[in-house]
C-alpha cells in the first residue's frame, strides 16, 4: 500500500478548518513498532502511514478522558477529529455512535480496508535483534519484511494476528473517504470456538482455570477496548463493589465473564484485548463465543446494519426458553 493517497487526503482534510487533528499511525524508530500519531499541523503529516504492522485500534483515543482530544484546541466550538479506521475499528466506532457515545459529525473517517495485521509478538520473535526501523508490506499471501538491510519473505499465516484470522469485516462500514481497494470478505469460521464447545464441562473449567490464574488484572484488556469507554467502570467501583480487588482465580473469572458479557452484541472483533494482554490470555475466545451464539440464538450480527438496536436492548417473543421452568 502506498501512503501517497493517505497523505494527500490528510493534507486536504487539515485545510478544511473544522478538524482539530488527525489520529493516525506512525512508524517508530525501533524495530517493528508502530505508535499512534496525533497530527495537529502540517509538520507531522508526512509521518502518517499504514502497513500490516498497524496493530492497534485508534478509536479508543476518541473517548479517552471524556473525549478531551475533541475539545482540545477548539474550546466551545463543535470540533471534529479525523482518524484512520480499519474494518473492525469502523464497527466499534459505529457501535459507539449507536450508543450515543459519540456523534457521527464529530469524526471524519479515513476508511482503510485491511487485510489483517501482524502480531508484534510473533514478528519480534522471528526477528529478535532488529536495529533501527523495519518495514513490512504484503503481497500475495506473503509478508515482505525488510530489516537490518536484508529482505525476507514470510508466509502470511506465520505472522498474522490470531484475531485477524477470523476477520469477516475487513472493509470499513462507515467512512468519509475510502483509501485503498476493498477486500473480498471471508465466511465466518468458528472452529476454534467449537473446539472448546466440544470439551467436557470439566475440561473447559480446567482450561480456563489455567488461563485466569495467570491474569494480573492490569485492566489493559479493558482500557484498550474501544468499546470500554465508560468514565467510571462498574468493575472498579467501591460501592457497590461487584468485584474484589484481590487477584485470584475466582475474582479473575468473574472479572473476565463480566467484561466479556458487557461486550455481548457490541464487540467489534478488533482483538485489542488479546493484543495487549501481557500474559497472553485468549480473551477473544470469550468474545467470539458470544458473537457466535448471538448469531445462532438471535440472528444478530454486530455492525450488520448501520442503525441497529443493541442486542440486549431488544427481544423477540420467540427467543429461546428451554432453560425456563
Amino acid at each position, binding site marked *: 500500500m502506498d501512503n501517497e493517497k493517505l497523505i494527500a487526503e490528510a493534507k486536504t482534510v487539515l485545510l478544511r478548518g473544522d478538524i482539530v487533528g488527525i489520529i493516525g499511525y506512525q512508524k517508530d524508530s525501533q524495530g517493528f513498532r508502530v505508535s499512534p500519531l496525533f497530527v495537529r499541523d502540517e509538520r507531522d503529516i508526512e509521518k502518517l502511514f499504514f502497513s500490516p504492522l498497524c496493530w492497534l485500534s485508534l478509536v479508543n483515543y476518541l473517548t479517552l478522558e471524556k473525549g478531551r482530544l475533541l475539545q482540545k484546541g477548539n474550546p466551545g466550538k463543535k470540533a471534529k477529529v479525523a482518524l484512520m479506521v480499519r474494518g473492525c475499528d469502523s464497527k466499534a466506532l459505529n457501535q459507539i455512535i449507536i450508543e450515543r457515545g459519540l456523534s457521527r459529525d464529530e469524526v471524519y473517517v479515513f476508511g482503510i480496508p485491511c487485510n489483517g495485521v501482524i502480531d508484534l509478538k510473533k514478528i519480534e520473535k522471528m526477528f529478535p535483534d532488529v536495529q533501527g526501523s523495519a518495514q513490512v508490506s504484503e503481497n500475495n499471501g506473503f509478508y515482505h519484511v525488510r530489516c537490518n538491510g536484508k529482505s525476507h519473505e514470510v508466509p502470511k499465516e506465520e505472522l498474522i494476528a490470531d484475531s485477524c484470522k477470523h476477520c469477516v469485516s475487513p472493509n470499513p462500514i462507515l467512512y468519509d473517504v475510502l483509501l485503498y481497494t476493498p477486500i473480498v470478505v471471508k465466511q465466518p469460521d468458528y472452529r476454534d470456538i467449537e473446539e*472448546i*464447545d466440544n470439551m467436557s*464441562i*470439566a*475440561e*473447559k*473449567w*480446567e*482450561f*480456563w*482455570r489455567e488461563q485466569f490464574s495467570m491474569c494480573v488484572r492490569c485492566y489493559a484488556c479493558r482500557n484498550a477496548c474501544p468499546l470500554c469507554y465508560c468514565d467510571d467502570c*462498574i468493575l472498579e467501583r467501591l460501592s457497590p463493589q*461487584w468485584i474484589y480487588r*484481590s487477584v*485470584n*482465580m*475466582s*475474582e479473575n*473469572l*468473574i472479572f473476565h*465473564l*463480566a467484561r*466479556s*458479557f458487557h461486550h*455481548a452484541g457490541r464487540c467489534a472483533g478488533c482483538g485489542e484485548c488479546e493484543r495487549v494482554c501481557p500474559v497472553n490470555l485468549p480473551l477473544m*475466545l*470469550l468474545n467470539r*463465543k*458470544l458473537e457466535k*451464539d*448471538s448469531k445462532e*440464538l*438471535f440472528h444478530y450480527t454486530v455492525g450488520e446494519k448501520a442503525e441497529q438496536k443493541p*442486542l*440486549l*436492548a*431488544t*427481544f*423477540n*417473543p420467540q*427467543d*429461546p*426458553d428451554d*432453560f*425456563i*421452568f
Partner: protein
Amino acid sequence: MLKKTDPEIVAFLCNWCSYAGADLAGTSHFHYPPNVKVIRVMCTGRMNPLLTLSAFRHGADGVLISGCHPGECHYMEGNYLARRRIALFRKLLGFVGINPERLRMSWVSASEGNKFSRVIKEMTEKIKQLGPLGLEEE
C-alpha cells in the same frame, strides 16, 4: 440448619409475580427445600449478570431468576429482556466450565405457589447432583 454439603440456591424473584408466588407457597404450606435464599427485585429485567456472578462468588451453587409469565410483566417487557440476557449468559457460563444448569429461570405468577415449590424442588435436586461450585474459594 443447612449442612455444609447442602447446595445453596439464591433466587431473585420479581416483586409483582414470583415473590408473591413464593409468599403464597409459604402461606399455603407447600413444602419446598430450605436451600433457597430469596432476594426480591422489582423486575427480572434489572438482573445484571453481576448479581448472578456475585451470588456464585459468595457461595451460591445455583441461581434462579424468576419473573412473570411472558406478556404479563408489570413493566411490559422486562422479563423478555431478562430471558434474552440469561439465555446468552448461560452459554458463556457453559463455555468456561460452569454448568449452565446452575443458572435457571422460571415464570411463576402470584397465584402459582404450587409451581414455585415445584421449581425449587427440581432446582435443588439438580444442583445437588452437580455438587458445590466452589467459587467462594480462591
